[in-house]
């Protein structure tokens, strides 16, 4: 079975054995079943517990061997000491994909390392693929598979139909961020907590996500890699498919690095090298944790950035300046609008506003909420403008909903992307903000974050252009074994 097929079984299993199943939803083996049931998992669930009987309304099996069918996936929620026996049963049952949730392996020291190796060797021998150990599970929203005991699975509103895949090496941070993302209606569809990566690793999941037609954007919370080559190859594949991969990498201080003797060794610390690899292979580097989803929603928006001449509209003159400063900081162009646009704006705006880019609609919007829409239309039609940053300040209540609806309506009529920075308290414009989020219009609480995300999209656009010029040279490296000799003397 290919890695792709294995991960497909992991994320989209038609049946799941839950080994270490429990009635008690305080226990991992109870909670995982609860989550599967709560979200109406469509396949068969086979709880396994030596006590047998029934668990959460499902028939429980005393042994993996008693399960009537071959489950696509076995979730092993048992102590490390019981794992080898369970794996032997999985092999007998012909189960090919297992998740190992227990911790206490390579991360704890020598004994754990030995046990982990024993498990890996056994699995390899029997063609079993492993997610984990130390994984908190997976989710596949659109197919209603929530095979995780993470508290994130209890989120009340999980957005359906999303196209973002999120791979995390840290289960706890990954789960917490996932719940925040879902709450903000970010379309995270496939989520994988990769754990210790004793077998399948972040590069494998990345490659899967790149090949997966339902994934549009990939987010990764990365702590470290064992194999740089597989990772580079996966990023090269993503670049070929023009799929954005956004990565937050922790572990930045190079403490305990091997002693180096040259300047090069000092200047090429491990984290610097990760960042260099991201840049060279077009992965979008999320410098701060907030950037990860800030960038994801920018890439996930249906209107793609094609060129980066930015039009700025705001309900405040001060805000206009902030957005412009940010654009200058990231080297984005804020051009003059056309004479035609100037004429149109002059006709419709009050005397005290200046028809220019950036455009300050002034507080006029409070008297005439439709005026914002009209100015937006002028900018959309302007040939000098490719993308818009809209900064809303104290627009709340019913006007907020109206402005949001107008933005959504116009965004559907144009290919030009719009990035909204909305600085009022969320509670005062909740309806309007949620409308924008549901329409996948990138929304940020500050101008800095909006323009930073826009700049990330623009940089990726530039990278894809650069990639066209170098992908031939790269493909011979990744897909051919012949290396040229030093040809000069």
């Amino acid at each position, binding site marked *: 079975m290919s890695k792709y097929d294995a991960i497909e079984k992991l994320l989209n299993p038609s049946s799941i054995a839950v080994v270490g199943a429990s009635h008690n939803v305080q226990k991992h083996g109870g909670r995982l079943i609860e989550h599967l049931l709560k979200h109406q998992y469509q396949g068969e669930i086979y709880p396994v517990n030596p006590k047998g009987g029934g668990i959460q309304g499902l028939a429980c099996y005393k042994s993996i061997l008693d399960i009537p069918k071959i489950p696509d996936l076995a979730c092993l929620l048992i102590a490390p000491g019981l794992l080898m026996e369970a794996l032997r049963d999985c092999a007998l049952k012909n189960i090919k994909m297992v998740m190992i949730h227990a911790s206490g392996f390579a991360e704890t020291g020598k004994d754990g390392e030995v046990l982990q190796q024993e498990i890996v060797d056994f699995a390899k021998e029997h063609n079993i693929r492993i997610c984990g150990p130390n994984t908190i599970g997976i989710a596949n929203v659109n197919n209603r598979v929530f095979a995780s005991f993470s508290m994130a699975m209890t989120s009340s509103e999980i957005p359906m139909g999303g196209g973002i895949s999120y791979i995390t090496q840290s289960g706890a941070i990954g789960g917490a961020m996932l719940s925040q993302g879902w709450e903000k209606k970010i379309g995270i569809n496939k989520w994988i907590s990769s754990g210790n990566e004793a077998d399948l690793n972040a590069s494998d999941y990345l490659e899967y996500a790149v090949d997966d037609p339902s994934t549009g954007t990939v987010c990764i919370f990365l702590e470290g890699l064992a*194999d740089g080559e597989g990772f580079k190859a996966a990023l090269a594949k993503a670049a070929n498919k023009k799929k954005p991969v956004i990565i937050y990498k922790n572990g930045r201080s190079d403490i305990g690095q091997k002693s180096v003797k040259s300047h*090069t060794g000092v*200047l090429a610390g491990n984290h610097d090298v990760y960042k*260099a690899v991201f840049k060279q292979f077009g992965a979008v580097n999320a410098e701060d944790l907030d950037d990860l989803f800030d960038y994801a929603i920018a890439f996930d928006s249906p209107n793609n950035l094609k060129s980066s001449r930015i039009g700025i509209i705001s309900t405040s003159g001060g805000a206009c300046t902030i957005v412009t400063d940010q654009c200058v900081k990231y080297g984005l162009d804020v051009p003059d609008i056309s004479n035609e646009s100037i004429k149109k704006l002059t006709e419709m705006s009050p005397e005290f506003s200046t028809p220019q880019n950036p455009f300050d609609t002034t507080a006029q919007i409070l008297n005439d909420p439709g005026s914002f829409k009209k100015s937006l239309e002028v900018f959309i039609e302007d040939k000098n403008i490719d993308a818009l940053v809209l900064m809303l300040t104290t627009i709340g209540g019913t006007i907020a909903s109206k402005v949001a609806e107008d933005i959504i309506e116009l965004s559907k009529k144009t290919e030009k992307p719009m990035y909204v920075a909305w600085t009022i308290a969320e509670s005062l414009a909740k309806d309007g903000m949620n409308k924008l989020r549901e329409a996948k219009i990138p929304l940020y609480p500050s101008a800095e974050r909006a323009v930073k995300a826009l700049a990330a999209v623009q940089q990726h656009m530039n990278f894809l252009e*650069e990639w066209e010029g*170098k992908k031939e040279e790269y493909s011979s490296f990744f897909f051919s074994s012949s290396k040229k000799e030093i040809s000069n003397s």
Partner: protein
Amino acid sequence: MIKTAIQQIINLSKEECRTVLTEIESKQILQDIGIPVPDFRLATSADEAVELAQFIGFPLAMKIVSPDIVHKSDAKGVMLNIKNEPELRSAFEEIIRNAKSYNPNAEITGISIQEMIKGDKEVIVGMNRDPVFGPVLLFGAGGIFVEVLKDVSLKVLPIANRDIDNMFSEIQASKILTGYRGSQPADLSSLKEIIQRVAQLSIEFPEISEFELNPVIVYGQGNGAVALDARVILDHRKSGVAAS
């Protein structure tokens, strides 16, 4: 042929349990892979130094050659801009004296006599092996302040033409290379060739764990670049597992 010559240098250092190549060995490798270095000869006596100076011509640079002295400047083993024979003779004695007081047990091979290279644009080209990503290539503003300025760009393999162009444009000092206030644009194509050759070397010789050319003097367009100093550090545990 070239591979064998380089392999011989590596093997010799392995037999002698050395992980740092001497300047002469390092420069031999540079010559072997076609990276220009200043004309240099080894002198084992002051008389021999005078004789060699006839071929190279004044002004000269003189550097201690000893397998036991890695940091030549620390040992006061480098003297620059030697203009005539009397200066040469006194410098020879002084360098030997300094080396012996720095490390009385050091085996002294001799002193390298080199042509004195002048140029105002100094860059660094380096290679280091990352435990995850393998060979990492470094390019940046060179000279003695590299670790202070930290103005460098890193790339991993494979390194395309375009990546090397990016290395030139990614550093802060990029404008100095492309021409600033009337100064001539630097010979980037020569630098590019040097980086490509270092990359190729890193693939073919896994024993080389760190490789550094600093400074590399780069001249104006069409006039090339010269590596003034080289440092090659080996990890003999990696021998015989060549990637090629």
